[in-house]
């Protein structure tokens, strides 16, 4: 057993310990904190698996923004814990545990018995990389080879926004999402909200830009930008925009809209829907990614902010 394996076992043990803590601890708030820690550490596993693109996504969206979302809900729902009814009976819990364990065991066996040599599409990705002018294979898969999935997934994000907004009361429709945050304008929070975002914005754009050739991309950059935006909102320096705003809606559909338009351009003038002409592939993909960065950052921020609660006038 070499030292790398020891490290891997230690990492897996810490991660699993956190997972067990997250499921088993009685207090919901503690479970949320446990999940944030879990999500951030899973990013290390992804680095270890040599999937840095995913590590960036997992750290930014899985642990970071997702964790903050859960944390906010846990803080709001804290008072309900006392009045919740008692959990399911011991028999139910025991049978659930046994059945879940058998599914996990079946999965473990299947994963360990996967064929060797493993089938892979990596050579095919390399062979076709020239068509887009980008060298980050994951970006190529996301934007070119499986562009349809990426576009539909942007529509999923938009539908999540529609779904969250549709929960507003009729009076608050069109208004600003989430509560109005107030903070001491000279306090430490406002100070941090002025200090951190410039750096964060640079990082976000850097992550997008480097995504053409190295790990990174619109999702990860968008998540960083979203967190900076939310930081400024939480410090009370700016307010969430009213959902009625036409500009806001334009930004929210910019990513999928441009994607769709470029795709249709390929259908009308090029070889196929979502096919990029080789000469313009890189600039086209980059411009779609820039639009997606804006869309993703805004969408993620608004998903965290929640349903419209206050009319826009106030």
């Amino acid at each position, binding site marked *: 057993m070499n*030292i*790398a394996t*020891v*490290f891997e076992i*230690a*990492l897996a*043990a*810490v991660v699993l*310990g*956190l997972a067990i803590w997250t499921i088993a*601890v009685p207090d919901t*708030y*503690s479970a949320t*904190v*446990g999940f*944030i*820690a879990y999500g*951030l*550490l899973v*990013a*290390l596993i992804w*680095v*270890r698996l*040599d999937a*840095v693109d995913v*590590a*960036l996504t997992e*750290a*930014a969206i899985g*642990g*970071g*923004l997702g*964790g*903050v979302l859960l*944390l*906010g809900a846990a*803080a*709001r729902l*804290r008072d309900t814990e006392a009045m919740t009814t008692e959990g399911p009976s011991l028999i139910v819990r025991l049978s659930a545990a046994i059945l879940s364990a058998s599914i996990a065991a079946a999965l473990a066996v299947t994963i360990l018995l996967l064929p060797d040599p493993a089938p892979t599409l990596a050579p095919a990705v390399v062979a076709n990389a020239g068509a887009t002018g980008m060298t980050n294979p994951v970006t190529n898969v996301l934007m070119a080879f499986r562009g349809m999935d990426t576009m539909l997934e942007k529509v999923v994000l938009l539908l999540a926004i529609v779904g969250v907004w549709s929960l507003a009361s009729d009076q608050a429709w069109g208004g600003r999402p989430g*509560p*109005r*945050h*107030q903070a001491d304008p000279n306090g430490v*929070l406002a100070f*941090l909200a002025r200090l*951190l975002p410039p*750096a*964060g914005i640079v*990082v976000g754009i850097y*992550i997008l830009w480097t995504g053409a050739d*190295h*790990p*990174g991309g619109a999702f990860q950059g968008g*998540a*960083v930008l979203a*967190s*900076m935006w*939310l*930081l400024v909102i*939480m410090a009370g320096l700016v307010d969430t925009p009213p959902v009625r705003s036409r500009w806001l809606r334009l930004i929210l559909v910019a990513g999928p809209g441009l994607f769709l338009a470029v795709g249709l351009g390929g259908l009308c003038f090029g070889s196929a829907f979502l096919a990029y002409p080789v000469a313009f592939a890189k600039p086209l993909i980059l411009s779609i990614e820039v639009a997606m960065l804006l869309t993703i950052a805004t969408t993620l921020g608004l998903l965290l902010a929640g349903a419209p609660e206050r009319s826009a006038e106030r």
Partner: protein
Amino acid sequence: MTEFLTAAVGLILAMLGLGLVSILRGPTDADRMMAAQLIGTAGIAVLLLLGTVTGVPAAVDVALILALLATFASIAFVKKGLSRLETDGADPGEDR
């Protein structure tokens, strides 16, 4: 050199695990939230070492994101905690 660095990573992880045990048990929420900070700093250290050991320079980018997002999570926690104090006290309208 590689072995040494990997051992250092293992040591940090072990310390992290121990730290998590004591922090997550901690009596108040503030203790628990220190976990995110701990993961932030320890995770960055691990990532930087790991990037060197395995020759994955992009691990530095992950460390960068981890730094930003762990800070953000802590701020979100402080904000929620503060607002809870306020709602318990005088101003129930804010940050419900």
